[in-house]
């Protein structure tokens, strides 16, 4: 019983840390974008102000039950991803709720949120939402293939389907998986461009073209839930990458350094790139990333 209480308390702590870190990363992204464009930019805590304002706005929109549940689906998916991913290795404040086969579970749960959001956006009846949803699902079909290939390569090579198993393998050999299976790392990082939806792949939101796509009918508190769920999901995905490929983290400072370094890859690539069209994006993901995914699987089968 005591253990359960500790787990619940730890889950709350994990959520708060993920929220704060994700929001701060979002604000830093805006600041860095502004500096690259030779602007002063908003303060790094701008996202917190925006979130508070959105939460304090009144909301008189009702398009139906599914529309109300869309943001909730997103939030549930983010929190479940966060709780399955081990944040710090061997720390009591961050409970390790993972189990055998949680990598396969993650593959499902990470697509669950966007699918729920797609249903919610469909009920609003806004044409921009519908176009955004079809684009998002096409893009997901694109980047899921190299991402799954990278994960399958890891599973074959180390004969385990749990994240802690892969972390143990890295701890035993002393080398990070990004060095011992580099092709899987390259494929996974390329798939990450699609996951974070920064600029060459921001075809879902598509500012000035689709009027923010699936979220175009959502304002105020809906946007607040989506924003916080996005921040939590960002943190969870970055932590997952760190756990899988960069040996995890033993304390919070190392975790922040590693996640921020990894986060800068899609952000900096995005600032300097224009947007792809949908078919270009899908073709990009089915090109080199999938090739590296294939190489990773071949390497895994040979080295097994």
């Amino acid at each position, binding site marked *: 019983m005591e253990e359960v209480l500790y787990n619940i308390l730890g889950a709350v702590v994990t959520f708060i840390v993920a929220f704060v870190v994700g929001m701060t990363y979002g604000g830093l992204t805006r600041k860095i974008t502004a500096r690259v464009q030779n602007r002063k930019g908003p303060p790094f805590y*701008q996202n917190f102000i925006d979130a*508070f304002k959105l939460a304090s706005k009144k*909301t008189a929109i009702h398009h139906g039950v599914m529309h109300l549940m869309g943001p909730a689906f997103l939030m549930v998916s983010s929190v479940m991803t966060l709780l399955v991913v081990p944040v710090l290795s061997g720390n009591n404040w961050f409970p390790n709720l993972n189990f055998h086969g949680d990598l396969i579970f993650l593959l499902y749960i990470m697509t669950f949120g966007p699918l729920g959001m797609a249903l919610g956006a469909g009920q609003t009846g806004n044409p921009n939402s519908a176009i955004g949803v079809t684009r998002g699902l096409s893009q997901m079909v694109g980047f899921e293939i190299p991402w799954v290939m990278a994960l399958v390569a890891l599973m074959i090579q180390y004969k385990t389907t749990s994240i802690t198993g892969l972390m143990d393998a890295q701890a035993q050999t002393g080398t990070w998986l990004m060095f011992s299976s580099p092709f899987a790392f390259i494929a996974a990082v390329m798939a990450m461009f699609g996951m974070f939806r920064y600029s060459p792949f921001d075809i879902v939101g598509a500012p000035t073209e689709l009027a923010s796509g699936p979220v175009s009918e959502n304002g105020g508190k809906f946007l607040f839930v989506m924003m916080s769920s996005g921040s939590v999901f960002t943190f969870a995905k970055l932590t997952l990458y760190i756990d899988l490929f960069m040996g995890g983290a033993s304390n919070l400072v190392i975790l922040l350094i590693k996640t921020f370094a990894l986060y800068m890859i899609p952000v900096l690539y995005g600032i300097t790139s224009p947007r792809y069209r949908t078919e270009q994006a899908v073709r990009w993901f089915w090109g080199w990333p999938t090739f590296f995914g294939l190489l990773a699987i071949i390497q895994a089968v040979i080295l097994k």
Partner: protein
Amino acid sequence: MINDKHSQKIVDYIQNWSRKHSIWVLAYGTGCGAIEIPPTMTSRYDAERLGVRGAATPRQADVLLITGYLTVKTLKRVIRVYEQMQDPKYVIGFGSCTINGGMYYDSYNTINVLDKYLPVDVYINGCMPRPEAVLSGFAQLQKRIAEGRADGAAQYKENLEWYRANQKRIIPNWVMPEYNW
């Protein structure tokens, strides 16, 4: 939110502070003043450092920025857009045309005084106002929000019949939905 005068005061203060520093603008760019918005938002004048950024749809926006003259046809759309926005919401009238008609004062199909049809919180005059003037207008709006005096939306609800009568007088075929707040 909370049924206590003093705590309500503190909550209002914090909420107004966050509203003041996070202004999402829906630029209704049919008039010629819309050309002044890109320089205001981009590197030279950088409105984002004040928390001002563009919003994509009326649902997400806080401020409706009406840039320049309004014809009778676009007035109808502006009213639709304004009524889709969520509280608290503000309107900025941009340029001389929204104040007294400007150079289109005797045109047969533009309106002269925007304040008769929508509650305007801040006017920015000039034909057209430069980005410095636009930023000063935003600063004025921030001041009014912080003082809690930017209550155009509340006035619109209170005097809805007066506004509706004015709108219906100028718009010939009225097919808008009727609201009952």
